[in-house]
């Protein structure tokens, strides 16, 4: 076990060797065998393994499960798993099953240690801080190794958005360029590109990220844009900066950049990748502290995701994270079947779901929430205000919101990231004013609007336990740091119990 802790199978055996109460507890905590006989954690491109219908991997919080509808899938020859570009990578390189179909910083470090930095993951193009740095040195890959960040190069200036010409209403200058990718020869805004650093987003549960709940984007003040391929409204929830509105565009973007594919994906490759991406679900299946997440009435794990309709707004239907509502009312008889620790953890998860939905605080100065929508600045609400989609916790509306995670003064003062000075040429930003200091302008690099600086698309909250660190730039090293960021940003006043309940909730999603 690379993570230095017992497998869930071993933990289960230890449990079963305990006291009678623990034996009874096994019945209440085990749904199916999880985590046993898992294949190697790392899926290398072109291995030709079979991707099982159900696949479990352990993590610090328990076990993540991927589930492929109508699986298993032969990966040999499959364009998601084959190195179809020129740098030896495949889609799976950065979308690993053990990491909830994303990539954790720890996995990146393990891969560095296992290969001496030779794995295609560390390709100079974006697996290093900048291709101009000495590629054999660990320090040249520090952003990937420490915070799980890949370099994303965006064209500048933005010329079109949603098929319409765009002229940015802001100027961008480089204040600091610690990695040389925004100021060297051919690099940086003056050379027609901007490099930012972002976490890979999970490729799983995508029917939810593609779902459209309502016909309007209230944050932008228009009806939803139409998919150029099928003419249907687009969800706007796929990418951090919303630069690709459908899976084909996302694939083509990723193939050309991350895989360094010199030609184009064929229609057949696109169809096969899309087919796989729409069939795979991922969620935490078992908790180290709480046991199986689909027992005693709870509905954790990917089966519920597979079987539910996407796009539902929790506030008018099934409340967000009600998958764990049954643990709010565990009967004495059932409680007796759990260890005290399991019972306490499950009750904490259920409380965490309520805190997530009901514990309100003042949200202020967050574009996408407090402007330009008419909610007011400030507005009192809870986590579920934005994380409002049933079963997933992403935004039913296109989720471009500025939490401050990439922009000063709220972002941490990291000197290993490039820092940009954005100057609004028209109206000032509604909350930052005319001049903004940011590590990543986010959605503004797609829309060309100064009002969108700092907005990052909300993502799925599933499989969090498997894919630290969090936020688009890896700002939060663990789940507690996520809660701490919100506490600091909005001065919420969570109690220690509420913080732990939220952490426990996030650990089982």
């Amino acid at each position, binding site marked *: 076990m690379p993570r230095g802790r017992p497998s869930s199978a071993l933990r289960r055996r230890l449990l079963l060797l305990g006291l009678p109460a623990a034996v009874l507890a096994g019945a209440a905590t085990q749904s199916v065998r999880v985590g046993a006989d898992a294949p190697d954690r790392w899926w290398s491109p072109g291995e030709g393994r079979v991707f099982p219908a159900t696949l479990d991997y352990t993590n610090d919080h328990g076990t993540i499960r991927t589930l492929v509808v109508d699986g298993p899938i032969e990966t040999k020859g499959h364009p998601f798993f084959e190195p179809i570009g020129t740098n030896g990578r495949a889609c799976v390189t950065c979308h690993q099953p053990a990491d909830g179909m994303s990539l954790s910083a720890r996995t990146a470090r393990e891969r560095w240690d296992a290969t001496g930095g030779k794995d295609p993951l560390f390709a100079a193009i974006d697996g290093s801080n900048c291709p101009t740095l000495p590629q054999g040195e660990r320090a040249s890959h520090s952003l990937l190794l420490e915070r799980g960040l890949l370099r994303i190069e965006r064209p500048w200036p933005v010329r079109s958005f949603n098929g319409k010409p765009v002229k940015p209403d802001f100027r961008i200058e480089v204040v600091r360029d610690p990695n040389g990718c925004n100021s060297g020869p051919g690099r940086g805004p003056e050379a027609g590109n901007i490099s930012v650093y972002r976490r890979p987003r999970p490729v799983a549960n995508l029917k939810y990220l593609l779902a459209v*709940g*309502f016909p309007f984007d209230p944050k932008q*003040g228009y*009806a939803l*844009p139409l998919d150029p391929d099928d003419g249907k*409204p687009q969800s706007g929830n796929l990418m951090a900066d919303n630069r690709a509105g459908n899976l084909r565009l996302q694939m083509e973007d990723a193939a050309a950049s991350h895989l360094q594919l010199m030609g184009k994906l064929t229609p057949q490759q696109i169809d096969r990748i899309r087919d796989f991406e729409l069939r795979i679900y991922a969620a935490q299946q078992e908790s180290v502290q709480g046991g199986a997440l689909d027992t005693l009435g709870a509905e954790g794990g990917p089966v519920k995701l597979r079987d539910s309709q996407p796009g539902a707004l929790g506030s008018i239907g099934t409340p967000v994270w009600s998958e764990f509502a049954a643990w709010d009312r565990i009967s004495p008889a059932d409680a007796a079947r759990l260890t005290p620790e399991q019972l306490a953890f499950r009750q904490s998860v259920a409380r965490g779901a309520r805190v997530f939905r009901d514990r309100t605080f*003042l949200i202020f100065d967050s574009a996408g929430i407090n402007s330009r929508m008419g*909610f007011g*600045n*400030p507005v009192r609400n809870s986590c579920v205000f934005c994380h409002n989609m049933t079963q997933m916790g992403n935004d039913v509306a296109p989720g471009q919101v500025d939490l401050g995670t990439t922009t000063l003064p709220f972002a941490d003062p990291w000197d290993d990231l490039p820092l940009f000075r954005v100057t609004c040429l028209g109206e000032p930003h509604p909350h930052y004013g005319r001049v903004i200091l940011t590590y990543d302008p986010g959605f503004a690099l797609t829309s060309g609007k100064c009002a969108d600086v700092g907005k990052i698309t909300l993502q799925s909250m599933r499989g969090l336990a498997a894919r630290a660190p969090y936020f688009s730039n890896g700002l939060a090293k663990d789940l507690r740091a996520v809660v701490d960021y919100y506490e600091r940003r909005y001065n919420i006043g969570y109690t220690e119990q509420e913080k732990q309940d939220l952490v426990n909730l996030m650990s089982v999603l």
Partner: protein
Amino acid sequence: MKSAATLLALLAPLSAHAAETGALVRFVSCPVYRDADSGKKSGCWLADDPATGLRWDVSHSPYKPDVGMGVLVEGRVSAEAPTACGAPVLEPVRTSRLDTPCVRHVLPAEGYPGRKFKLPPRNIQPLSVARPVPPGPYSERTFVTYFEFDRDFLVYQYDDFIIDNAVTWLRAAKPKKLIITGYAATQPETVTGRKLAERPQVAQQRADAMAETLSRLLPGLPIETRAKLAAQPTDHPDADGIPGQSQRRAEIRAVF
């Protein structure tokens, strides 16, 4: 459309002396947020009329203020008791964010509960809910959308509701084209000692914004846009009897 006399009556300026139910109140101020807590979106928005010193509860506006920016308040005095937020209530009411900065004032709840959030009457159903097909016969018809002062931004749970209904009708009626006319209230008016007039270009911006939205909802339908300045008030029901709101509009005319 009502007569000019009726419109004049609607427009009659009202001061604090006329704070009777239904009276029109209009002023510019800095908004105050009262952090009442009866759950989500329950906080109170207040604004003091500098001319009278009266504080009003403007929380019913579909577009809420920014505590750091000036606000144009337009509303009618309501009979609702001032118990929720600690001030007489304007309802219907509109608040428009102005570009003038304000010192931020956030008051504690001070025992006022605010209002437990409930969906406003103008809210749209999810796309998963089928829209009933409006019965024919279909002939030329105009739909009207409304905006904040000097803005072209679609107002959530107001314009989207109007447009959703319009699109449902337009899909059934299949007009030959749409003519969208954006209006701007460009004639200066003095409010709270400040001359207010919308920018002329916002008329076209409103038409363009509506055209963009409708081109997405009704792809392929020809759309023409026009702009008209010096907008006059109307008594269209979706303006809720607020003359200033009725001026800041875009009209979507279906032509057969």
